[in-house]
């Protein structure tokens, strides 16, 4: 059957090449979160377990000058830390640059790990304008299910962050009672 295609493996970002090693290891920035069209389309379609959501939502959009300071290129991984937590995400050149000193991560499980839950009695957490640091890393970006397991550990007995991070991946499809989606004989259930 021919469907109109709405899938997009990765958001489209400016093709800027960064050369050189970078001048600093840790960059101090201001973090904003919010939605963009790639994240919205992927989330609401329901493709949250997929690689596509990881790329749309777990990406830190940076000013190319900031990327040059760290010596990172499009789709390298960076570690973002705030007072509320840390998370590994991809980095990419922002479509809205220039905004030196500010980084943007779309809302989603990745951004949630590091945003502030302070509501200042106004019901609304502070999702924007949070101080953060960005550094280069070799750790990989976790898929949604793995990330939820790593952050909340609701259904694993393990307490150690590093062990949970390196556990076998839960994959890109739902897991029904220990059986992967592909293993179900009758997909219609």
């Amino acid at each position, binding site marked *: 059957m021919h*469907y109109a295609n*709405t899938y997009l493996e990765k958001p489209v970002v400016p093709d800027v090449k960064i050369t050189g090693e970078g001048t600093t290891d840790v960059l101090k920035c201001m973090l904003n979160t919010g939605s963009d069209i790639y994240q*919205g*389309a992927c*989330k609401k*379609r*329901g493709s*949250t377990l997929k690689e596509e959501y990881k790329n749309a939502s777990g990406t830190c959009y940076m000013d190319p000058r900031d990327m040059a300071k760290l010596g990172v290129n499009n789709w390298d991984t960076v570690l973002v830390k705030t007072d509320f937590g840390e998370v590994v995400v991809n980095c990419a050149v922002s479509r809205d640059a220039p905004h030196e000193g500010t980084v943007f991560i779309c809302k989603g499980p990745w951004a949630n790990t590091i945003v502030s839950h302070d509501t200042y009695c106004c019901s609304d957490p502070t999702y924007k304008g949070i101080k953060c640091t960005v550094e280069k890393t070799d750790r990989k970006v976790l898929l949604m299910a793995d990330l939820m397991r790593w952050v909340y550990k609701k*259904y694993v007995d393990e307490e150690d962050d590093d062990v949970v991070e390196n556990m076998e991946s839960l994959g890109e499809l739902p897991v029904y009672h220990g059986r992967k989606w592909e293993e179900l004989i009758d997909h219609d259930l």
Partner: protein
Amino acid sequence: MTYEPPVTDYDYIVENCTCAFCGCNCDDLDYLVKDNHVVAVRHACRLGASKIMEDMDQRLLVPMVRDENGELKEVDWDTALDKAAEYIANSIRPVFYGWSETSTECMKEGVALGEYIGAVLDNQATICHGPSLQAVQNAGYPIQTLGEVQNRADMIVYSGSNAMNSHPRHMARYAVFCRGYFRQRGRFDRTVVTMDPKFSDTAKCSDKWIGFEQNGDYGFYNAIRAVLRGKELYQDVISGIPKEDIYELAEEMKNAEFGVLFFGLGLTHTLSKQRNIDIAIKMVQDLNRYSKWGLTPMRGHFNVNGFNIFMAFECGFAFGVDYCRGYPRYMMGETNTIDLLVRKEPDCFMVIAADPGAHFPNGANQHLANIPVIQIDIHWGPSTELADVVLPGSFIGVECAGTSYRMDGVPIYMKKAIDKPETCRDDEWIVRELKERVMKLREEPNVAPKYVPNPNAL
């Protein structure tokens, strides 16, 4: 992006459907249906089209309950509903969160259940436009409908909102590019201003971009208000904007024939929160001394406004309504989901048509790992990873009909286009079943103790 041939292989077209994504509720969509599945959508934007042609891989099809190993196990409807009802009936402080992506008919059952059991009912406004609703109570609500904007407005201001990304057809269908009765030339008859620290996609197609600095919104609006009231600005640069520009903008706003301010989460999520909106509303009031101005919050989900309007009608409060004392009560910062979760108060959490896993900060979600979570949704999402009982609902506007409220408060009936998967149920049915089962488990409703006046108080 690559060229894609149009979809020609379909059985029939369902015309004039309503989009179930953002607060624009575009009601002119055509669905191309083949084998009871929407294979293409006409007129919708990228967001709407992608939601309607959902991802069937991740569609929740059967009710599921976690077993002792922490794995989701498929069960029949009775078992799952009984389990969920048991969690709700045995809880002391249940929170029912969500409602923004379901129909108003379903909310009716939800309020009945919440009132019976003494729950907190809250919706996504609590993490998006909650401060706006609070500001509306503080300062007023000078609103207009989107039809008026289309026909009359000649100056459109987007503040802290990236409409091109989050409400893609807003500019085309209601505000900027569309032609209207008094604006025959469409875009050429309108001035568009975007206020955002970021040079966003909306700013790129505006006439003017005001890039005030981060958290500078409050100062900036105050400066405009001062100018509108004939005061002089003493600083040369306010919130990163030179004062000459502020004078010029204020003059332009005064001279508009009909101006509208659309504001988004850029204002509610920064530090001054509801004070930002207060001041924006007051600015609109000041502008009304010179010309006609109105404002509209850019609501995110297609029925987030519906819950607020419905709750305000039912019990007097728009969101974060707490029934635990037997009567509705509302207190900002106290009866709202995030505050409750951060204080670790709830002992049962029901998510209906929402995704806290994807949208709540870590500090709030941590508590969901300690308590039973019941999820009613259509897709396997981040919240499913935290859920103990999963009840598959149906897709309003595609598989099931229902009423929703547009961002300007206009109710729209969303019709049904295709049949839902056989094993799924309507959200309304699920909540009603839960209500009946909870009523069997807990026979006494939660009512306020009788009021006895204190004789010594007089």
